């Protein structure tokens, strides 16, 4: 028998021997996992994004099984997953919060917002933000370098030709990665039923906003006066909307002189809430 053959036989034999040993060990040291945890983990999306606040889908499944987290704790899976988990737990489907989607609160793209310089640095908003605040005059606006788009794990964002990010709401899961990525806090998570948004974050005085952006909020207060439910208030030179009060009537959008307030198509008026 030649040497190589012996070597092959030896290594094969050693491997087989150790494998058999490990098989026995794994039988002996087998861990009984609560079958419910496995079931819940299967129901979860399994992408370990961490949007729920736990380390991954496995940790969330454990928390749900122990009753430390609600059945709808997974913001990514939405209602479908919450229902499945509720079924596994054998509980009635609790009233799930509405699905949240990301909204970009800036309309100042390359056309609307004046540029003061050519930014030639690395293509990342966070870097541009700390190097003299990017190329736009407005220090509150979108930097347009698509850091949020890169952060989105679900391909639910893209840059439009005007240099602004757009959200595909059907794909958005409300995981909040873009919110985290944006150095200017332009992106917020809002319940998907709300269709009126004040797309500006500028705290500058109205006349200063005018100088740097065509579509920035100038704090003229017309929306505040027009709103029938008192959902809009001007704080620090910026109109802010209280989504809990908003009924998506769109009257503010109609009077806004600079068209900062936008009404999204396909989102209808919701009934006024009982809270005044």
């Amino acid at each position, binding site marked *: 028998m030649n040497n190589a053959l*012996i*070597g092959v036989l030896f290594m094969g034999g050693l491997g087989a021997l150790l494998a058999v*040993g490990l098989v026995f060990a794994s039988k002996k*040291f*087998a861990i009984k996992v609560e079958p419910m945890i496995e079931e819940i983990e299967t129901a979860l999306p399994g992408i370990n994004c961490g949007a729920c606040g736990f380390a991954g889908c496995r940790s969330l499944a454990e928390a749900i099984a122990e009753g430390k987290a609600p059945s709808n704790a997974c913001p990514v899976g939405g209602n479908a997953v919450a229902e499945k988990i509720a079924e596994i737990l054998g509980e009635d489907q609790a009233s799930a919060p509405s699905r949240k989607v990301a909204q970009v609160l800036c309309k100042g793209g390359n056309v609307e917002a004046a540029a003061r310089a050519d930014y030639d640095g690395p293509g990342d908003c966070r870097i541009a933000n700390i190097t003299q605040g990017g190329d736009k005059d407005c220090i509150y606006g979108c930097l347009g370098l698509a850091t949020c788009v890169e952060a989105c794990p679900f391909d639910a964002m893209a840059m439009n030709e005007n240099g602004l990010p757009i959200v595909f709401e059907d794909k958005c899961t409300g995981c909040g990665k873009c919110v985290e990525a944006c150095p200017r806090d332009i992106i917020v998570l809002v319940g998907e039923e709300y269709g009126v948004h004040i797309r500006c974050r500028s705290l500058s005085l109205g006349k200063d906003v005018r100088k740097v952006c065509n579509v920035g909020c100038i704090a003229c207060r017309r929306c505040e006066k027009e709103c029938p439910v008192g959902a809009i208030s001007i704080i620090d030179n910026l109109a802010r909307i209280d989504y809990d009060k908003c009924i998506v009537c769109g009257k503010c959008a109609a009077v806004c002189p600079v068209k900062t307030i936008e009404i999204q198509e396909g989102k209808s008026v919701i009934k006024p809430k009982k809270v005044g």
Partner: protein
Amino acid sequence: MKYLLLFIGTVITNNFVLVQFLGICPFIGVSKQVTTSLGMGAATTFVMVVSALVSWLIQHFILVPLNLEYLQIVSFILVIASLVQLVEMFLHKSSPGLYRAMGIFLPLITTNCAVLGLALNAVERSYNLGESLIYGLGAGVGFTVALLLLAGIREELEFADIPKPFKGAGIALIIAGLLSLAFSGFAGMI
């Protein structure tokens, strides 16, 4: 007497981590807490002792008679990997907390060069079975001692006012270097 000297020599004078610089990865990685590092030390010691035994048996009863010395590293690694798997299963069953605390460093004992270094060194120095076992035990104890020393210091460091650039791994490496210097003072004693 010979065995005692070998043991002490391996634990202190030729400490695997602090003098021979083997197994630095878990040395820095799992030395944040004394309890965790004790568990890591115990797991590694077990793997070291058993792999010293098995590798000696393989070397002397299979590899040498069959002229297969060139398969030394591969077969030793195979044995070590299986042992680590065994330890991992055992720990997962017996102490889930420790299992979680050690995290990735537990399966990484497989690639801990201290374990393979031990097996290869024992062969190279043509130790007999008893010496190999003592050598393995000494290496494991030495590894545990080094880990515990660093972990104890690092636990205290949590409360110390460390300049920002040195926080975390930076100061740990400096401490490790100082420990190593201290241990090099034992050189030549045995």
